[in-house]
C-alpha cells in the first residue's frame, strides 16, 4: 500500500448549542497522512485550533473500532462518509486525495437535536428500546442454554439483525428521517428467536408507537438506510417488521 500526504480544505458545521443558529466554517488542514483515520485528521485540526486560541470541533466518538456506534457525522453528504459498510471512525484518509474539499455536518433529523457542532442527541433510540426492545427475563430465571435448540439459519439471521450498532446513520440517510431500519433490526432479532416469542406482538406494536411519538418520519422504501448502514443491516428486516406489525395489529384481541 502506497502512503501519501495531502493538504485539504474542511467545511465544518459549527453550532454552539441546541438553541443557537449554526453555520459552516472553512479550515485548511495540511500534511494529512493517508494512513490516518478520519477522526485522527479532525484531532490534528483540533490541536491546531486550540494552539491558535480557538475552540475545537465537538464530535461524538469513543471506541474508534466501528462497534460502539457513538461516532456520527455526515461527510460530503453521506452518513459516515464515502466507504460502504464503514463507520466514520474506521474511514481512513486514503479515501481522499490532495486538494480535496470535504464537507462535514451533523446527522440531521428532528428526532436527533444538535447538542454542539457535530454532536447530536440520539436518546430517542434508547426510548424505543425501552418501549419493548428486550425479552422480559429477570436474572436467575434461565433454563440451560442448550435446552432449546435454535436452527442455525435462524440464529444467524437473528445475529445479522442484532449487529446493528444504533448509530442512527439510517435516520440521517433517509429523506424522511425514518427510523424503520433501526426498529426493524431489533424487532427481527427478537422475533426470530424462540425466546422472543411470548412478547412478539406487543413488542412490535409498542416500539412502532414510540418511534412515531419521537417524531421519526415514515418509510417510503428508498433503501438509502441500507446503502449507508455501516453494519449493512438489510432492508429485508423492514419487510419483516411490516409483516410482524400487520400480524400483531390484525390479530390483536
Amino acid at each position, binding site marked *: 500500500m502506497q502512503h501519501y500526504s495531502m493538504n485539504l480544505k474542511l467545511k465544518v458545521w459549527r453550532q454552539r448549542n441546541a438553541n443557537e443558529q449554526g453555520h459552516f466554517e472553512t479550515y485548511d488542514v495540511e500534511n494529512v497522512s493517508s494512513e490516518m483515520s478520519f477522526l485522527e485528521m479532525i484531532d490534528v485540526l483540533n490541536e491546531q485550533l*486550540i494552539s491558535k486560541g480557538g475552540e475545537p470541533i465537538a464530535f461524538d466518538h469513543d471506541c474508534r473500532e466501528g462497534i460502539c456506534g457513538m461516532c456520527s457525522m455526515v461527510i460530503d453528504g453521506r452518513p459516515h462518509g464515502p466507504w460502504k459498510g464503514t463507520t466514520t471512525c474506521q474511514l481512513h484518509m486514503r479515501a481522499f486525495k490532495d486538494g480535496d474539499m470535504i464537507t462535514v455536518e451533523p446527522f440531521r433529523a428532528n428526532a436527533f437535536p444538535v447538542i454542539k457542532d457535530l454532536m447530536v442527541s440520539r436518546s430517542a433510540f434508547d426510548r424505543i428500546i425501552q418501549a419493548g426492545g428486550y425479552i422480559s427475563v429477570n436474572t436467575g430465571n434461565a433454563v440451560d442454554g442448550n435446552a432449546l435448540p435454535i436452527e442455525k439459519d435462524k440464529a444467524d439471521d437473528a445475529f445479522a439483525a442484532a449487529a446493528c450498532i444504533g448509530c442512527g446513520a439510517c435516520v440521517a440517510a433517509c429523506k424522511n428521517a425514518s427510523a424503520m431500519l433501526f426498529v426493524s433490526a431489533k424487532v427481527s432479532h427478537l422475533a426470530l428467536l424462540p425466546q422472543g416469542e411470548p412478547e412478539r406482538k406487543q413488542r412490535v406494536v409498542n416500539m412502532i408507537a414510540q418511534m412515531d411519538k419521537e417524531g421519526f418520519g415514515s418509510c417510503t422504501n428508498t433503501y438509502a438506510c441500507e446503502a449507508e448502514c455501516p453494519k449493512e443491516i438489510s432492508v429485508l428486516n423492514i419487510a419483516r417488521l411490516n409483516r410482524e406489525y400487520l400480524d400483531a395489529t390484525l390479530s390483536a384481541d
Partner: protein
Amino acid sequence: MLDAKIPQGSLSEKWTKYKGSVKLVNPANKRKLEIIVVGTGLAGSSAAASLGEMGYKVKAFCFQDSPRRAHSIAAQGGINAAKNYQNDGDSTYRLFYDTIKGGDYRAREANVHRLAEVSTNIIDQCVAQGVPFAREYGGLLSNRSFGGTQVQRTFYAAGQTGQQLLIGAYQALERQVALGTVEMFARHEMVELVIIDGKARGIIARNLVTGELERHFGHAVLLCTGGYGNVFYLSTNAMGSNVTAAWKVHRKGAYFANPCFTQIHPTCIPVSGDHQSKLTLMSESLRNDGRIWVPAKQSDNRAPNEIPEEERDYYLERRYPAFGNLVPRDVASRAAKERCDAGYGVGTSKQAVYLDYAAAIQRYGKAEESKRNLGSVSSETITALGKEVVKEKYGNLFDMYEKITGENPYEVPMRIYPAVHYTMGGLWVDYELKTTIDGLYALGEANFSDHGANRLGASALMQGLADGYFVIPYTLGNYLAEEIRTNNIPTDHPAFVEAEKNASERINKLISIKGKQTVESFHKRLGKIIWDKCGMARSAEGLKQAIEEVRALKKEFWSDVRIPGGINEMNPELDKAGRVADFIELGELMCLDALERNESCGGHFREEYQTPDGEALRDDENYMYVAAWEMKEENWQLHKESLNYEIVKPSQRSYK
C-alpha cells in the same frame, strides 16, 4: 494484613454456604433503598438491571450518550463458561485452575472459584435474553478454544461477542428504566464521592452537556467503571475510558491494588505513525487458526509470501510446543517483543510480526472438499472453499484489518504487535466486592480480584457479568440489610456541599491555568513514559526515572495546560483534562508498585528477574501477596493481603 473476609469451609462450598447464610432484605424495604451504579458496561448494566429487577431504586450513570456504548462492546472473541458441552474434560475446577495458573498465582482462590461456579449461569441468562451466540447445525451452542487452555469452553457471537452480551444487558437495563426501577443518567461523569460517617452515601456527577454539577444520594455506591489502560495513551481502550471515578474514591480512602498488573495483548494492529490516537485489537481467537512467525533471518525485507517455509521462524510453536500459538497473552507478547528487539521484526517500523492464515485456509478448504463430497478439486477451489470458512469464522475481523491497513489478510499475512489492552489491577475489594470504604463496591475490570497478574482470554466478559448478575445481588444485600433504618439523606447535607465545592474548585483551577500546551500533548507524553518504562519490560532503574519524570510532568500540567471554552457548556477538552490529571497521578503509583514488586509474574516483567531462557521468575516466598495502596496526603502507604493457596500448588508456569 488486609482481611478479604473469605467465608470458612472448603473451597467448593464457600459460595454456596455464603449464599445460604447471607442477610436478606425484604421486598418492602428494597423499594426504599437507593443504589448508585457508575458505568454501564457489562458489570454496570447487568448489576443495575438485576438490582432493579429485585426492587431496589437504582440510579445508573455513564459518560457516553447511551449505556449501550460502554467499551465492553468492543470485546471480540468470546466468553468462557465451564459447561463442558464439548465433552472434552472441562469442569468448574478446570476453569478455576486455568484462571489461577493463567494469573500466575497472584489471584484470590475463593473469588476465582466462585467465578468458575457462576460462569455457566451467565450463558443460560444470556441465551434467555436473546443473545445470538454462534450455533452448530444441530441448533446447539458452538464453542472455540482460547489462549491458556486446552479445552473448548469459549462461547461467541462471531467476532462481536462483547457487543451482543452488552446489548443483552443494555436491553435488560432499559426494560428496568421503562418499569421505573432504574433512572438513567447518560452523558454524566462522576467527579466526587460523598462519604458520611465513614460510609459511601452518594456522588457528585457532572452533566457533560450543561457542565452543571449534580448531587445524588445512594445507600450504596457501585463503581463499574472499567480499567485504566488509557494511562498509556495508546491502548485498545475506547477514547473515553478513564480512571477518574476509581481515582476519586482512591483519593478518599479506597485502596488501589496491584496497579502494575497491566495486560499487553499480543495481537493488535501495529502503530502507523505519530497521528495514532488508539490501537485496534485483533481478537485472540485468531490465534486458534493463525500461525505467528517472523523471518528466520534478521532484517529480511522480502514480501512475506516470497519467504519460503524453511526460512520462517514460527517462534511460539518452537518455544512452546505444548501450547504453540495458544500460549497466554503475557507469554505471547513478550515473545513478540523479544523477536523484534533482536532484529527480526517486519513491516516498515520493524515493530511487528506476521499472523498467517495461509495454512488454515488450506486446511479448511480440504475439510470442506471432503465434507461436501466434491471428489478431487483444483487447488484454487480448495483455497476458495477455505477462504469461505475463514470468512464465516473471522470475517468481521479480517474486514476491520483491511479497513485500517489497506491490506487484504486473505492474501497476505497480517502484521501484528502487542498493545495495552486490559488492567488486572484496580480497586481492592473483599470477597463481597466491597472496597475499603464501607458501602462502596467495585465490579468488573474496575476491581482487581480475579485475574491475578495476567488475565486469560474470554474471561473479562465472564467476570463482568458474574459480578453484575450473580455476585452483587447477593453480597450487596448483606450490607443493605443493615441500612433499612437509614432514611434518604437530603443532598443539602454538609458532606454533599463540601464534595461539590471540591469538585467545583478543581474544575475552576483547571480552566484558569490558561497555559500553552494542549491536554492531548500531556497525555501523549505520559503514555510514552509509562510505555517505555512500565510497559512490557520494567527495571528498577527505569522505574525510578519514570517516577521522577511523571512528577515533573504533573507540575508542568498544572501550570501550563491550555483548556479552551467554558465550564457551563459541553466542553470535551475540559472533560479530558480532568481525566488526564488523574492518569498522571495513577502513572506514578503504577511505577511505584512495579518498583516495589521485585519479581516477574504475569504481565509484570522485571528484567532483573527472569529464568535463563527468558521466562518470568516469580518470588513466592516474598511476593505472594496483593499490594494494596492507600493514599496519604500526596504519598502512598502499602498494605498487603497475603494469598493462601489451599487447593492449587503454585509452580513455575510452563506452557512448553
